């Protein structure tokens, strides 16, 4: 079998893999990124909700079970840039309390690090990726450097919904977005046309192809697409990862050997690969002496609020992620009297298109025929929306296991993912719907309605922790069992927080890369 040797092999070219690649390559390491999906540049990002569906996951099917499936294909991408290639760049920080949920509330888990450990990396990442926001108006924001870019502008939809928050004595601030509100580091400014879900081809949105991959390539990293990793290789005694086995679409298999293997294939494929790489020394799967590999899969519940207003909302303007944020409900006990637990934030006034799952059409699924036509016409003028990002408590039984009987074309067992929302998280989602509708009414909506409990973002599955008996990796993403096998991505999160994950993915990747470069000798042996 053909073999190749590099310093670092990275599985996946998404948010985590690209970021760590850029840093390790800049640190002088020979880096190879293997990406299962096709090669894409920003020029492939056609502005169309239909064309954008080609960016979604189309690798090995994921078998989904449980009352609240994670929506893997919707929530995952494939090809250069991964899911992050068409993500919406809502980048808030986690809060200090998110890192100590177990010790403060006897629920969920603790992280092995605190907010203070990550803060310098949040500061670093925001200057590299360019986050627009207003740190002062974001009164809930934990300590940190102010945003490098001025806040995103407010369009009529945002102004109208802001009215509702004002009327209820709630605060709003510009939504923190990794989007260029003004030209930044050679990137053109955003033109607020709402095409982010199709991918931003002008480089306004901080996707991996715009920010991290060019840095990685400039420092000598090599990306190979159509390269699906099927197995992580280990040495004879099972103490070190030695590389990966990779196959292309023609069925040609190779080994890529490396001093450090970084798994950045997102929250479902990372544990799938670990479990599928079992050896005599690791019979339950690699890095799984704790039995935790695959466990604690989390996904934010989306609290979807919709309304129609008399005045024109111009809801086609702005970024797909929204215009404003509210985190008044971030205290985990805000709704405890209704049995709810956890944090949430409102992303307010998303740009919408008429079709697609997050567009106008599906929101009134009860309407069809000419009623639907007339609704579409009214909504094109006066539609508004906002979304609660609702924390999902980690539950061990929400997990990835390997299918007993189904394999992909390469012979790797498919992932089976079970997810049922914890009742306390479900109650929190219920509470956001009540609050959200009241806000829309206070804003003067003629009609208000809500959507189903959608799944947003996939986290957990390879959680970090201080104790090797109850977690998969240390705080740098190094597997407790094989320290030169490093995991990156939201799969590391022990709790999901009530905000979007990808800023924290970057901060963790930056911290890991620094640690690996500083401790290269001890990390690789």
């Amino acid at each position: 079998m053909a073999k190749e040797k590099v310093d670092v092999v990275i599985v996946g070219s998404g948010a985590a893999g690209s970021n760590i690649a850029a840093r390790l390559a800049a640190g002088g390491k020979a880096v190879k990124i293997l990406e299962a999906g096709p090669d894409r540049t920003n020029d492939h990002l056609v502005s169309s909700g239909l064309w954008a569906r080609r960016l979604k996951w189309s690798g090995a099917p994921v078998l989904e079970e449980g009352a609240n499936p994670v929506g893997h294909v919707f929530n995952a991408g494939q090809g250069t840039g991964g899911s992050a290639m068409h993500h919406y760049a809502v980048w808030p920080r986690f809060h200090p309390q998110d890192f100590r949920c177990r010790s403060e509330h006897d629920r969920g888990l603790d992280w092995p690090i605190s907010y203070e450990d990550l803060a310098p990396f949040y500061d670093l990442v925001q200057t590299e990726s360019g986050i627009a926001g207003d740190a002062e108006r974001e009164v809930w924001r934990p300590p940190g450097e102010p945003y490098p870019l001025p806040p995103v502008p407010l369009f009529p939809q945002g102004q109208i919904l802001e009215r509702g928050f004002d009327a209820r004595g709630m605060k709003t601030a510009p939504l923190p977005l990794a989007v260029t509100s003004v030209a930044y580091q050679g990137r053109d400014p955003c033109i607020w046309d709402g095409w982010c879900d199709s991918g931003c081809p002008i480089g306004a949105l901080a996707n991996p192809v715009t920010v991290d991959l060019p840095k990685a390539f400039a420092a000598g990293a090599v990306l190979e697409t159509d390269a699906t990793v099927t197995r992580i290789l280990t040495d004879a005694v099972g103490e070190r990862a030695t590389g990966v086995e990779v196959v292309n679409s023609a069925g040609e298999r190779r080994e890529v050997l490396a001093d450090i293997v970084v798994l950045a294939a997102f929250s479902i494929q990372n544990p799938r690969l670990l479990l599928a790489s079992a050896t005599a020394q690791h019979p339950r799967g690699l890095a799984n002496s704790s039995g935790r590999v695959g466990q604690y899969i989390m996904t934010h519940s989306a609290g979807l609020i919709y309304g129609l207003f008399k005045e024109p909302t111009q809801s086609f303007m702005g970024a797909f992620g929204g215009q404003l944020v509210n985190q008044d409900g971030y205290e985990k006990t805000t709704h405890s009297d209704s049995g709810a637990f956890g944090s949430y934030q409102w992303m307010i006034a998303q740009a919408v298109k008429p079709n697609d799952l997050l567009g106008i059409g599906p929101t009134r699924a009860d309407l069809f025929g000419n009623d639907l036509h007339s609704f579409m016409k009214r909504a094109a003028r006066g539609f508004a929306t906002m979304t609660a990002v609702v924390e999902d408590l980690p539950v061990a039984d929400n997990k990835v296991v390997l299918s007993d009987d189904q394999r992909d074309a390469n012979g790797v067992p498919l992932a089976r993912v079970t997810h049922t929302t914890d009742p306390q998280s479900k109650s929190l989602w219920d509470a956001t719907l009540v609050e959200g509708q009241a806000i829309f009414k206070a804003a003067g909506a003629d009609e208000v309605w809500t959507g189903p409990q959608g799944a947003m973002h996939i986290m957990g599955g390879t959680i970090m922790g201080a104790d090797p008996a109850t977690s998969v990796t240390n705080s740098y993403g190094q597997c407790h069992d094989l320290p030169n096998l490093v995991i990156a991505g939201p799969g590391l999160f022990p709790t999901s927080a009530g905000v979007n994950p990808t800023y924290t993915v970057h901060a963790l990747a930056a911290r890991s890369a620094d640690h690996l470069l500083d401790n290269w000798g001890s990390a690789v042996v």
Partner: protein
Amino acid sequence: MLQNRRRFIRDSSLGVLTFYLAGCEVEMTAEQAHRAGVTRQVFNEAEAEALGALAEVLLPGSIDLGLVEYVDQQLGAPLDQQMLMIKYLGVNPPFAPFYQGGLAALDQAATAAHGDRFAQLDSAQQTALVAAVAQGQVENWSGPPAPFFYFVLRNDAVDVTYGTKAGIEGLGIPYMAHIEPPSPWGQ
């Protein structure tokens, strides 16, 4: 699916649907395909008829915009080129059995209630049956979960009608593409 990735990479710069017309490949939009009466890849005559009739109830005009050809062509495309919304609604590929099973169930329900296939019912009967499908109130429904089948097909009709440049602009919404779709939906 994996075997098709090479082809996808090779073809991904092409921007129009490839339909099979009288044995030779031609490129056209689904609307043109509908007018030209192209050969279908997946649906038989009865299925196409039921789908067209259903589309007209779900969103009048969508049959002329090429809904039947759109779904048929997309079902025949490799997964990583497919644009049907069903691909991210929790159903694993292949998707043709989902559509075919639902359409067969629709015809069975129509026959059980009115003694004729769905396409042959009058408009009031069709509308009432679609409403029952939407609410999961069809007795002995044999296809995929009825409200979900309704949801998927309804959104396909929305995609064809309001998901294209013409459809979006028709609502008075500026399209503002960074990169114009080379066709309403791709190959």
